[in-house]
């Protein structure tokens, strides 16, 4: 049966969500051989400080490249959670940063709270890789792309010299993702 999986990564400018979206889409399209599109906040929205990146992954042609009914929402800020949780489908997944998002929305989705930014800070030693940690969790929770594809896409995108750090971030994220998926 064919599928269309809509993902939105949301938070604040500087959190690397556009990069995370590109990595995820490239993992699906280039390394897993699926169809994928990626789009991002642009114009005044991006200038205002909010950041949003959307990825659609499908095994068929993607006719409309904008996300409308989300299967997965990552929210790294309370504002992003408030703004976008209404776009979630029933039975979708909402992953929030446990420290940044205090008030959870009333949605018929599975909600996972993880201290993503803290994990990046304490376990990888760098808060800037929270985006990659989040990708690791997303991969474990959804399996929408393979871990190998995601890792290859990460390595093909991150600045030279930071490969090992980003690999570690991805792996730690996946570990946490698998743990919460079991519960």
């Amino acid at each position: 049966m064919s599928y269309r999986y809509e993902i939105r990564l949301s938070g604040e400018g500087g959190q690397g969500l556009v990069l995370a979206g590109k990595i995820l889409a490239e993992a699906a399209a280039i390394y897993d051989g699926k169809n994928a599109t990626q789009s991002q906040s642009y114009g005044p929205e991006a200038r205002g400080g909010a950041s949003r990146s959307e990825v659609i992954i499908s095994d068929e042609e993607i006719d409309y490249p904008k996300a409308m009914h989300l299967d997965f929402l990552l929210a790294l800020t309370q504002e992003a959670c408030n703004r976008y949780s209404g776009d979630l489908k029933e039975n979708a997944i909402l992953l929030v940063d446990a420290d940044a998002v205090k008030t959870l929305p009333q949605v018929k989705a599975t909600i996972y709270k993880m201290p993503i930014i803290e994990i990046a800070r304490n376990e990888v030693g760098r808060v800037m890789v929270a985006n990659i940690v989040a990708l690791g969790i997303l991969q474990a929770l959804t399996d929408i792309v393979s871990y190998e594809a995601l890792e290859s896409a990460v390595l093909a995108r991150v600045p030279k010299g930071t490969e090992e750090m980003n690999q570690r971030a991805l792996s730690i994220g996946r570990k946490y993702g698998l743990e919460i998926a079991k519960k």
Partner: protein
Amino acid sequence: MQKYLSRLKNRANSLGNQHQKYIRTIDKYFDSLVASLENAGKVEYIHFWQGTPRLNQEMDVVLSVGKNLEEKLAFLACYYSLQMLHMNIRSIDVLRLQLAEISTLEQRIPIYKNFMINSGKDFRKLTASYMERLIGLMATQENLPEFVVLGVGSLAHQDDIDLGVIDDGSDKRKSLNLAMHKLSQEMFRRATELHFYLTEHVGVEFYTASIEEFKGLLDAEIQDFIIITEMLNAVPIFGSKKLFKQFLQEIIFRYYFQKHNDNKYHEAYLRGILGEIRSFLFRNINHDKLNPKDDALRMLQGLIFSGKTIFRIHRENRWEILEDLKRKDHNRSGYYVELEKVLSFMEVFRHVFQLYVGLEEDIYLDDPGMGDNLQLVAQTLGYHDIGAIRAWDHLLIHYHEYAELAKRITARLLEDVKEHTQSISSFSLMASQAKEAENYRSYPGNLAIDFLRKSHFFKGTKYWDDILRYLTDENSHLLENFIGDICSLAPRMRELIIKKYGQAFRQALYPSISFLTLLAQRKHQLRCPEISAAFIEAFMEMLTTCSDRVLRLTKVFSWYPKLINDFFMILTDKQRRRFSLLLEQDLWEQHDQRNKELLVHLFEIHNNSSHYFKRFFTRIINKHPYYINYLKELNALDHIAQGMLGTIDSLTTFDDCKNQLNDFHDLEFLRLGLEALRGAPIEMLDAEFTLFTDNYLQLLFDIAKQEVNRRLGRYFSTRDLIAIYAAGGHGREQAFDDDYDLIFMLDEDDEEIRRYCNKIVSMMNCEIMRRGAMPHYRFADHFGHYITLVDDLDEFFSANHETDFIDKSQILGARMIVGTRKFQKKFLDRIIRPHIFDRNDEYIKKLINEMRSRHQDKENFQQENIVIKEGIGGLRDIEFLLLIYKAKYQLDEPLNMKLIQQILTIETESKTELLNLIQYRNFLKQVRDLYRLTVSASDLIKVEYLQPVAKIMAYFKEDGQPDTEKFITEIRKTMEQVHVTIDKLISKF
């Protein structure tokens, strides 16, 4: 062939990780491509191992050997990838070669410029050829409408390609959109990602839009100016030139300045771009992170494109536009030359960094391996190690210099763009018509409604300074007329209009806050002053629904700290309480979070400080808004203050000296006030406060004396003749009094010298009063002038007035701050010893009687409020006790800790009581100081306002709330203990 392929891949591996995508495509399809070409006998047509001069022809050959669509796409992607790698490797090789024999940055800049122009052209040529062939594969010509693909981004940037596709609006556009969709997918998978921002929001189709759809979108509103900038940057890549020409004429040209015509589109674009440029201009450069786009390029691009529309330049490449600007706007050509240098430097740095390291815009200096990465970039850009200084150190120095230069040029050119905007603004006529009372009578409409209506077209733009200027102009009646028109509306309509303004505030926080502040400051000159509160209410309402309010407020604060400070000043307590809830959000970027914490800190200062403290605070912050950055770093404020003090004597004019001295005074007051609010120990505060006020008064005396000498044209020797004593709280070395009790003594009856001294005191007075601290001259009323002669004082005390013990207490508690030891000895011998020490029994008796008579009345213990100074067991009692001991043992020290130490060594039997008394005094003094700083500069403590003081002094309940009840009980108990202790001690006399 494999040897060449390995060599190419090796070279590509030294480039950024994004090149792996191309290597992967080559690995996947190279062998079959070569085999197919060999089979077709066409392999020698293709440049595999170097960049090709015949892109289109070779791509056609590659396509011709693919058996089916999938193979054609794969072969084309493989060929594109090969050419992409060649292009990037070659461009770096050429750059290195060109820079090999050049040593200075000045000489390198033109090479950077040419490199960027050529890199852009090469990339555009390669991608255009590729896309044109892809679209040919995705659709047949007959199925497609007339269309043109426009490139709208910067030419050389390889992360993504920004495109716009204009179609003719015919039914065939569906096929075009399908083809563009497939093209986009293919490019994303195997080449470079495409973005269609210019056209994706315009019409019903996702990838393309027609001219009619553009008109439908842009006729009624400016929309977002970023679309306009993209349009202004548009270059046809392939497709119908005719359609592009039509698009130029019907859409793009409307944003160009047109003399004698309606310029509302041009104005709206400029309002948008001015807001954008300014937001980057005021952005602080992050020291841990480089971002050439945010640090310089966005500002420069904004200026270049505003120049393009103002001077009607029909070029797209930024360097070419600059060439035209140098010619057409000749007076500013010097700025354009500088701007070009920064543009070339920043662009080449960004481009080479991205080629070598990665496509990210943010460059974190502490990323692993970043030093090596930047070293490679620096060496490619012609930098070398010099001794211990590495090439990338030099590069970073130049980066920061150019980022600063970008800001300087932008700040200068921005003024000209603003002036131009004001000159063509459609609001100018409206404003000038309404600003004069007489003209206004003939104004046909309602200003408030008309402005709202007119500004609808400009929705989303942030630059409204010109309108603010009109409103602020004190000679204009625009604000009065504007508010008057709102007041004239029926209540419901008025409410609606204010609500609408509240919604409009969302777009532009800086002008909105400026307007609200102006309105509140001038509300009493307006027809209905209550309108100010209604506007603030509408603003708050808007903020509650504005999700990025904290970031935006933080940015306005970091650019305009004084404005935010002024805004906080106008808020009522209720509005402040509401506002505090709006700031509860953390920010991601470290420097934003730091600024946000400062903003919150500033807000808390306003929320928890008295007018007494705010008076000093506001004065220094208004004059030096930048000091707000140090509100949490009090050591830094201390260093600045010491720097001010240390350089006063190097200033040459009286005005400069006194201004700096006054700033020193206010800054030190601010610093110590903030220390006190943090709960600093009272002994430290008293000592440092006394030190700075002594320094202030001593230096003020010196500079006033020099100025009087200068004005009189002669010098008076006053050594051993003049002394200034501090009496009252300052004499007792206590912080935070709101006045200075001074005694200006002169030991000389020469009338000319007295007049001379009087001039000095008058001058000092003037400055002290401007600090908001009232100077009192203890004996001025009695003797009729500021100066008190030693002889007069001697005579005064010799008369033995019944109540002179009060004056004697002032003299006994006074501390010399200007004067010589010789004068002090004389003062002691002529005044203190004969009139107080030699008759100490009589003086002590009078003081004790005075205390007892006050203690008869115990009413204030039952009083709701606390009289902390003059009440029973208050600070005055402790002061009297110290005076009694001082007189009894004839001690020289003023009423400070040293005196107490001396008393302790003498009064060994009362040591416990005295030590307790010190504790009580410190506690009560801290209550008094904090009450003055947080509530009011009054010695009558109103218990209902004690909560902030209880909080600072750490009186908390178990639930973490301030325990005011317990605190009040503690104060009353302490005063009772002071009372009991003093009673016990004076009973021994």
